[in-house]
């Protein structure tokens, strides 16, 4: 009786929390007179897009698209997804356009329609600041070179790697690539010039030893044949900004005065390098917010996982062969698919295949719930089956129906067995939310990646994140331990 009351109370608390924090989740604004376009962008491509100290998204791309929107009278909703995720989101129709320092290539023109070029870039090689052996491409022979997937630098490196005899390591974001070079895994990297130059200015620990290659140009992309009016507005807006001088102002703001857009000297209009303590201090509001989201997604996902677990768990202990089969398939399926693949599948593949769009947070919650749901199913099945068969028989022999016996006799005993495993699952799911940063979910890990994209201080940021996860998980397990002791005392 007491346990049941407690469970009901806990449930009520969950639902309350759910509805309360629900207001934090970004939701589409109510329809307004101006049309709103959702624009996907990269998370970590300074100076084109990155989060500033205040946690606001800034960068040449961001300022440009907003200035153009202003000029042309439409609204934009920026979704910072990461380059790959943004491109896939565009294909699946989850976003209307992508502005992410995206080079215009013939290959991409097959799938996308590009605007007029808005920035002339070109790849350049970067090496670690303390590396004196690599002075030209010739020195790369037999070595490993890092590139970021989908960049012009990657294309260029690919085109010369046989000629100079080096191998490639491909990364998903700039900071990982830079860390690879600093850590010595690769001796050099190829990156678009403005990005690398900006990074060096920020003290990312690399230097430039060669000249910039002649390169292509960046364009704004929409899906081929779709959103043509957006593309046209972009082109018109860009022309207006260029003639009004606004364009030069935006670029100079990030790259300094001069022929920045053509790859000239990087100016000093950037923030000075911060000490690690300052960095942690200034980033803490963003981290705490990220942690809030991490906890929020954990709780919501566990809530749904618990419901799934109850449904499929009771199927797995049922006497009906068909129901048992359904339960088994559910567990095998979602326990067998890696969470990362599941997230990609839910967010990119399914919407694309069936022609609808899905919010990142919804996809993340679905993926986490299904994954955790499979494990919770097994926890519940194991808990129920750990109870002596004689308990059910005794209840049934008194004339008590199966469901009542399950609810009043078996489950109250089984819950005590399940609690430690539930706590374990809670910790696992909390940590698994970090995987959702690959689809651009804003949570603690993603908040950290955004700060790294700006500052390149991997060590400080990941150390801070690790400690934060550790503290929160320790606190939660201590609370759960106390709860467990109370439950087992009955």
């Amino acid at each position, binding site marked *: 009786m007491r346990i049941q009351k407690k469970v009901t109370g806990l449930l009520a608390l969950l639902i309350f929390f759910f509805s309360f924090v629900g207001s934090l989740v970004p939701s589409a604004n109510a329809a307004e007179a101006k049309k709103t376009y959702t624009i996907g962008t990269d998370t970590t491509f300074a100076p084109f897009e990155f989060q500033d100290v205040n946690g606001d998204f800034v960068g040449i791309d961001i300022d440009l698209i907003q200035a153009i929107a202003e000029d042309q009278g439409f609204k934009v909703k920026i979704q910072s997804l990461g380059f790959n995720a943004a491109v896939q989101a565009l294909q699946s129709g989850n976003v209307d356009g992508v502005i992410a320092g995206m080079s215009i290539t013939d290959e991409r023109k097959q799938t996308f329609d590009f605007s007029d070029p808005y920035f002339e870039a070109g790849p350049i090689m970067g090496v670690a600041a303390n590396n004196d052996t690599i002075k030209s491409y010739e020195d790369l022979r037999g070595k490993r070179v890092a590139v970021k997937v989908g960049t012009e630098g990657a294309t260029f490196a690919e085109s010369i790697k046989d000629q100079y005899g080096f191998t490639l390591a491909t990364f998903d974001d700039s900071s990982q690539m830079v860390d690879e070079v600093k850590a010595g895994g690769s001796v050099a990297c190829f990156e678009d010039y403005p990005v690398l130059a900006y990074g060096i200015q920020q003290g990312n620990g690399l230097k430039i030893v060669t000249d910039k290659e002649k390169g292509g140009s960046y364009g704004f992309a929409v899906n081929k044949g779709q959103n043509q009016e957006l593309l046209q507005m972009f082109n018109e807006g860009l022309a207006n900004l260029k003639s009004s001088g606004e364009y030069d102002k935006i670029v100079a703001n990030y790259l300094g005065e001069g022929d920045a857009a053509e790859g000239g000297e990087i100016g000093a209009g950037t923030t000075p390098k911060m000490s690690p303590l300052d960095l942690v201090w200034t980033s803490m509001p963003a981290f705490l917010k990220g942690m809030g989201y991490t906890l929020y997604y954990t709780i919501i996902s566990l809530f749904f996982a618990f419901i799934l677990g109850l449904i499929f768990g009771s199927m797995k202990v049922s006497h009906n062969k068909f129901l048992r089969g359904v339960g088994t398939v559910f567990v095998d399926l979602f326990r067998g698919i890696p969470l990362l693949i599941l997230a990609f599948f839910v967010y990119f593949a399914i919407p694309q295949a069936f022609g609808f769009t899905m919010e990142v947070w919804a996809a993340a919650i679905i993926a986490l719930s299904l994954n955790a749901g499979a494990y919770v199913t097994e926890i519940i099945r194991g808990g129920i089956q750990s109870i002596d068969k004689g308990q059910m028989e005794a209840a049934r*022999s008194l*004339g008590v129906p199966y469901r009542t016996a399950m609810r009043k006799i078996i489950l109250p005993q089984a819950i005590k067995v399940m609690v430690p495993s539930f706590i374990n699952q809670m910790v696992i799911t909390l940590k698994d939310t970090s995987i959702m940063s690959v689809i651009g979910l804003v949570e603690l890990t993603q908040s950290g990646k955004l700060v790294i994209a700006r500052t390149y201080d991997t060590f400080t940021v990941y150390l801070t994140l690790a400690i934060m996860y550790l503290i929160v998980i320790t606190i939660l397990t201590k609370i759960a331990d106390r709860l467990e002791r109370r439950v087992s005392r009955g």
Partner: protein
Amino acid sequence: MDKIKVTGLKKSFGSNEVLKGIDMEVREGEVVCVIGPSGSGKSTFLRCLNLLEEINGGRVIVDDYDLSDKNSDINKIRENIGMVFQHFNLFPHMSVLQNIMFAPTELKKQTKEEARKQALSLLERVGLADKANAYPASLSGGQKQRVAIARALAMNPDVMLFDEPTSALDPEMVGEVLGVMQDLAREGMTMVIVTHEMGFAREVGHRVIFMDGGYIVEEGTPEEVFGNPQHERTISFLEKVL
């Protein structure tokens, strides 16, 4: 009048046929003791009488309800058949009183107050009035089994089934449980008891059934079965246990 009537009862676990055709009946107020070597099918037979084991063939009629009929409401029938298990199977998360009150209140046979009053008087009857608020974990084996009997009696059954009720008990506790069962028999309860307590079967049983290999090999009054066994297998079994 027959309380229980069994004809041609068969039961298999997979390809292993445990009951190969059982015919028997129990009259109202009769105490039937079932004896036999382990593996003879006597526990399975008992469990078929309240359908804890599914019946594969034949008919079992208890109180005019046909258990072998798929349409009969098994929960309703079970309310009238109490069962006591070898391992007591008390609900460990409930106090002694709650164990006894659970079924009558859950099945809306009695209000909480009525159930409490009845539970207390049943505890009095099995000599455990002072243990009402104790939890099963704090009781001895003999006490647990007496609570289990009280729990089964709380539904006011017409028939009581006992599945080796003293086999899991320390020897010094067997007596207190048998004492309670003897009182029940004296009050006229219809009982089927699977037991290894030959002394008890001889003293309390109206009839003794000897089972072996899935058949009833021999049955009769205790005097007949114990004093003058007819069948060879009965003789060799009794030689070993007496």
